[in-house]
């Protein structure tokens, strides 16, 4: 319990920090508050009656009794119990429960005799009837959720304490114990006619003294926002991060390798290879997803062979990683290859004349020179992996906490009617994307500025010992390498983005 609370708080803090970096936070908070308040306002429209937050209890000024354990049943069941057919039945809140049954033309309200006596209610008194009806209507509106309400039916109430009555040829019985401890309203017919559509819906509640409970005001403002943050399942964020991070490792290595490989190929092979490496960027993600599903799924020989050998990938987390790798790989590959191709081949040849091995040239010269592009490609690939939706949904599905990434969560939360949570994730993704692009831009402009600066100061600032400068080159940029290598200034290859 405490662990999950801590986890919740850490998560909430994390996102508050994240959101805090953007000035739009107040508006976002406000939007959430407003959506939460809408429900409250609707209830407040029913002036005198106050309804509890979970819509199961209501009380009103000037009436000593209140309703609790309210429920509305939009359908019942004709299912028999223990082999006995009870007709069509709707559940009740208990042995002493009020039963409401809306049938064509009127709405029955059954109040058991002993309960009426206990609460000193004369159910024939029109004042009492009006009060009970008002409580019921307020609760009914709160839970009807688009179904026909008692108010919309606008038909007279028939208050009764008779537990059996006849309606239009059907027998109605209130408060029948069908199973131990479970009471029902029963509708049955003596002939073969179907009792299931006699009632529009049924409701039930318990009469309680009005002072037996209090109704708290719905939380507002920051508290509501805090509750909202606390109620969010943060797993999509971690799944996204985990999936993209692992995918990035593969993409980084594979992308560099493929870029290096493509340089060595002769032109025709290179064109073909380049198309193969780049095609996931052009294909719709659903096509990638489809192909992956065909490759690893149960429906092809290869997929079945894999499954027979214990490699079940489809609808698991590794499938999400693979999908992310496939779609992110071309970004890494293309940016890196672009940088490699722009490198001066004379410079590489010069290194060869100095006796450098190809490996050394790659790691000590090409990589450092191309680093800004590689960094940008890495960030882009990471962002693409985070944003992956189509292929992931295809091969990895939507399993909360396993393969449900943020983009997938957005779609399914929206589809499931939880627009506020979808909005939250949209906001998070926008913020992350913004940070990513900002990072690339800052980084690019920084290396640009540095190159210009070092160019002007090269004559005087260059360290006298070239090897001392190599550590800097290894992590930094291309232009300072021009100080150590005896070649013309490297053309702009770093800021292709």
């Amino acid at each position: 319990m405490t662990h999950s609370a801590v986890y919740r708080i850490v998560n909430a803090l994390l996102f508050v920090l994240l959101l805090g970096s953007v000035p739009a936070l107040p508006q976002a908070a406000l939007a959430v508050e407003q959506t939460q308040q809408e429900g409250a306002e609707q209830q407040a429209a029913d002036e005198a009656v106050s309804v509890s937050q979970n819509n199961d209890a209501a009380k009103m000024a000037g009436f000593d009794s209140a309703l609790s354990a309210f429920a509305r049943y939009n359908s019942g069941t004709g299912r028999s119990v223990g082999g006995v057919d009870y007709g069509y039945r709707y559940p009740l809140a208990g042995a002493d429960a009020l039963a409401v049954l809306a049938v064509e033309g009127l709405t029955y309200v059954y109040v058991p005799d002993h309960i009426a006596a206990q609460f000193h209610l004369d159910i024939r008194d029109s004042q009492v009837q009006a009060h009970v009806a008002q409580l019921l209507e307020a609760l009914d509106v709160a839970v009807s959720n688009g179904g026909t309400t008692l108010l919309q039916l606008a038909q007279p109430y028939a208050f009764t304490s008779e537990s059996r009555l006849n309606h239009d040829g059907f027998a109605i019985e209130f408060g029948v114990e069908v199973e131990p401890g479970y009471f029902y309203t029963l509708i049955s017919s003596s002939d073969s006619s179907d009792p299931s559509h006699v009632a529009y819906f049924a409701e039930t509640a318990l009469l309680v003294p009005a002072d037996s409970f209090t109704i708290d005001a719905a939380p507002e403002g920051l508290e509501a926002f805090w509750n909202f943050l606390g109620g969010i399942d943060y797993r999509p964020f971690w799944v996204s991060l985990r999936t993209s991070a692992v995918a990035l490792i593969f993409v980084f290595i594979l992308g560099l390798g493929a870029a290096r490989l493509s340089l060595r190929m002769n032109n025709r092979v290179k064109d073909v290879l380049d198309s193969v490496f780049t095609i996931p960027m052009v294909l719709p993600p659903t096509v990638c997803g489809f192909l992956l599903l065909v490759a690893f799924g149960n429906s092809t020989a290869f997929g079945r062979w894999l499954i027979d050998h214990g490699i079940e990938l489809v609808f698991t987390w590794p499938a999400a990683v693979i999908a992310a790798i496939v779609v992110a790989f071309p970004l890494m590959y293309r940016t890196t290859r672009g940088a490699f191709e722009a490198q001066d081949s004379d410079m590489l040849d010069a290194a060869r004349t100095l006796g450098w091995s190809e490996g050394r040239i790659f790691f000590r010269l090409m990589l450092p020179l191309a680093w800004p592009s590689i960094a940008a490609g890495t960030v882009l690939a990471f962002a693409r992996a985070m944003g992956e939706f189509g292929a992931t949904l295809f091969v990895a599905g939507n399993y909360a906490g396993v393969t449900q990434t943020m983009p997938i969560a957005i779609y399914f939360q929206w589809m499931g009617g939880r627009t506020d949570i979808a909005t939250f994730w949209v906001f998070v993704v926008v913020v992350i994307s913004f940070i990513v692009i900002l990072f690339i831009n800052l980084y690019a402009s920084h290396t640009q500025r540095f190159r210009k600066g070092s160019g002007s100061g090269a004559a005087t600032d260059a360290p006298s010992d070239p090897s001392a400068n190599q550590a800097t080159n290894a992590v930094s940029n291309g232009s300072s390498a021009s100080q150590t290598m005896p070649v013309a200034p490297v053309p702009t290859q770093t800021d292709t983005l």
Partner: protein
Amino acid sequence: MLKPISQESSAHRFHVLAVILSLLLVLSVPTFLVACGSQPTTPTPQTPSAVAVELQIFAANSLEKALPEVQAIYTQQNSNVTFADTQFKGSGDLVSQLQGGASADILITASASTMDNADSNGSIDASTRVNMFNNDLIIVKPKGSSTKIDSLAAVNAPEFSRVAIGDPDAVPAGSYANQSLSTVGLYSDSSGKGGEYLEGFGDKVVVQSSVGNVAKTVSTGDCQLGFVYTSDLYRYDGIESAFTVPADTHKAIVYPGAVVKTSKQATEAAKFLDFCLNDPEALKVWSEYGFEVAK
């Protein structure tokens, strides 16, 4: 003189920062792996009498709100049984997904024909198949909309430019809707699949991939009408019933449930299906959401 030096040093800082960031990223991966690996393998306390069981359910999209509540009640009563993230999609999608190699213990679809498909695919254990719920088909409109419909044919009235219907191949609600539409000549095939919409009406139809999407697009006002189940009313805000489609214009709407053939915990799965049908607390949930538990 000073300027380039300061720039260089700030550039250094920047590169160091970049290296640290990428290092952090790489280092964080094993941590995540460990964290993610440790969660599922945490040994759940096992008593000799009750072995921990995790059931994976594939259920029709319309059950998205009701089923989790019933699952919660079940876990409360049987602490050894938990539920993996239940998949709520169009019934046709679920059947394809099962066929494609997804593993599950229970399949609940929104029509007999989709369950028939799962049966002929060999995905389910036919002996466990049972009819679980009945539902009604209704036409919904955005909440507060003043449109009025008094007959099925009225959906083709000029005032409606967009009508949301589920894709009949994947969404049973869509094929029920098309069956009903065929009785008034708006759809060409009385089976509800493989036909064409009447010219003029077809342009208005917006095909959706799940009944939830139908409800959602109507609630946002993007479509003025949509064909959904009665039970969808009670799980979505922003829609209200405009017309109840006469039950005799489409096949009876039944939700069959069955244990998946490859399930390794078939006994527990069958127990849960039985619970859904017969437990009085579960009945309350179904009734609240408008699912009529089948006879």
